[in-house]
């Protein structure tokens, strides 16, 4: 059953530029330069009930714009959106009572007060009845292990603790769809795991449809059954996650106590030197498709002691480049 249908959605922004320097500042008093930025160039897609859909794309690709329009807080220039019979920006007041949202950068909690106070305020805003509220709250407290956290002032909580409470805020009124904009940004691995588990559970138990934007590939891989990749305002990929050939490449920055033998390093299979930082430090691109990471590292270190090691995902731009090539 289709729950979201989007057709020919377009959005442009107009920004005003101000130049650098004293003279430019004076000029801007009288005249401003206009710049048009096409955030969405007419995208189409649809989402089925119970899906977890990932919006992927580099910064400024248009994924946040799309999410804002879908959640009813931004007017598009043209195009149609039908979500559960509503047009989000036209029926905003009615529509938003059926959705929840977590914007990673914007908090719905009150800085100086415990999250519990914010939950009760949310209850008043959404006119949730007492029994349903208590039942939901109890369930989320158990799922997210936040019994003690919700009574402490928000400003004393860690980012991970706060994020768990943001999810409660977004879920208390039992929304049918939940929009997540960078929900794991800045979190450590353990906190990310808790959040991902929670998303999976509410999706399974309450059949909540989840739309998630992230530039963390792991979020998408772990959660989504469908991926939409947006780049420069266009959809460049819209299919099941299995169809997406996710890069198994990793970026490794490795630092030794001794000077590196570059000649030998260059000859290694499945290892490419990205950058020689010094005689001791080098950045490599490795392919973990055929070989386990620990084995690759064993080959790279060639019996030498490692001083420091940093392993990263390749940036999302590289993944998108690969889609273009096909």
């Amino acid at each position, binding site marked *: 059953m289709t729950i979201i249908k989007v057709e020919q959605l377009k959005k442009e922004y107009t920004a005003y530029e101000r130049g650098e320097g*004293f003279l430019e*500042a*004076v000029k801007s008093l009288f005249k401003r330069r206009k710049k048009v930025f096409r955030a969405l160039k007419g995208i189409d897609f649809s989402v089925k009930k119970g899906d977890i859909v990932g919006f992927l794309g580099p910064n400024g690709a248009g994924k946040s714009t799309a999410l804002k329009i879908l959640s009813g807080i931004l007017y598009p220039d043209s195009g149609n959106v039908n979500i559960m019979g509503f047009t989000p920006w036209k029926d905003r007041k009615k529509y938003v009572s059926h959705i929840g949202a977590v914007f990673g950068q914007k908090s719905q909690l009150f800085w100086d007060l415990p999250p519990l106070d914010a939950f009760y305020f949310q209850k008043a805003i959404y006119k949730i009845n007492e029994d349903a509220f208590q039942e939901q709250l109890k369930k989320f407290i158990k799922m997210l292990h936040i019994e003690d956290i919700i009574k402490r002032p928000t400003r004393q909580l860690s980012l991970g603790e706060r994020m768990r409470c943001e999810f409660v805020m977004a879920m208390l009124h039992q929304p049918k769809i939940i929009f997540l904009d960078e929900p794991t940004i800045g979190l450590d691995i353990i906190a990310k795991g808790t959040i991902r588990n929670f998303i999976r559970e509410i999706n399974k138990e309450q059949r909540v449809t989840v739309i998630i934007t992230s530039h963390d590939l792991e979020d998408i891989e772990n959660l989504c059954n469908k991926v939409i990749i947006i780049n420069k305002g266009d959809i460049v990929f819209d299919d099941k996650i299995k169809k997406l050939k996710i890069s198994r490449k990793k970026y490794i920055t490795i630092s030794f106590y001794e000077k590196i033998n570059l000649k030998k390093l260059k000859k290694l299979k499945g290892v490419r030197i990205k950058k020689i930082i010094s005689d001791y430090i080098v950045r490599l691109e490795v392919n973990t498709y055929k070989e386990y990471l620990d084995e690759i590292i064993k080959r790279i270190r060639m019996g030498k002691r490692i001083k420091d090691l940093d392993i990263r995902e390749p940036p999302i731009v590289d993944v998108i480049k690969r889609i273009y090539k096909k």
Partner: protein
Amino acid sequence: MKLNILKTYWKESLAYRAEYLISVFVVPMRFFILVFIWSAVYGANQADVIQGYTLSNLITYFMISTFVFIAIFNDVEKTLEKEIKKGDFLIYLLKPVNFPVLEFMKKIARRFFAILIEILPIMIIFILFFKEYLVMGKIGFFLISVGIAFVSSYVIYLLIGMMAFWLINIRSLAWILDFAIQFASGLFFPLNLLPPTIEKILSFLPFKYLIFVPVNMYLGKYSTGFESGFTNTVYFQLLIQLLWCFILILFACFVWKKAIRRFSGVGA
């Protein structure tokens, strides 16, 4: 280096074009209303002089006091509080710069700008609309007095800011003090319009030398000769003003040393 600081603040100020327009709009408007009020008061009482001020004297007093206010007042207490609260103040202890002196340079740059873009346009508006009320005054001693007042005002607000070394939140307290200082300096009305006892008390404080005395110097209320006694001369007023300025600086140095010791001790 100094020129660079100046340039930065010019640019920063220009960025607030709306704020600028607001202040160029607000000050003359406020003045219009003042003129209405006092014209009505003088008219209804058929009085030419109230406490030694003719209507034009009084209107000129309000105009010049507004200019002095724009020229000398600063918000160094807010800057200092912010730096302490954010923890950025530590940087000043590590760098070979002195916070009070550096801020003073910045404030001069800012005030210089304010005089150029705020006072000049407002002055033109005043001259256009209120010409008949304005009195030409004695500029020389007035400017010297404003110069001293600028330093005193900076030191006073620096002292208020220093409270942040001991108290967690000084915002509200600073508001009250700011208001009290504006009142005691004669920004709202000439101090001799107050009941004599209150005026007497205020004359023992340094604040009246921020606005009241400079403005009266402009209006020629103090003599340049010694006919009516030394205490009524411009020289005596300048001397006292200078004396207060030194006392304030010494006091500020003393408190600053204590504050730094406390700040390093707590290690905040």
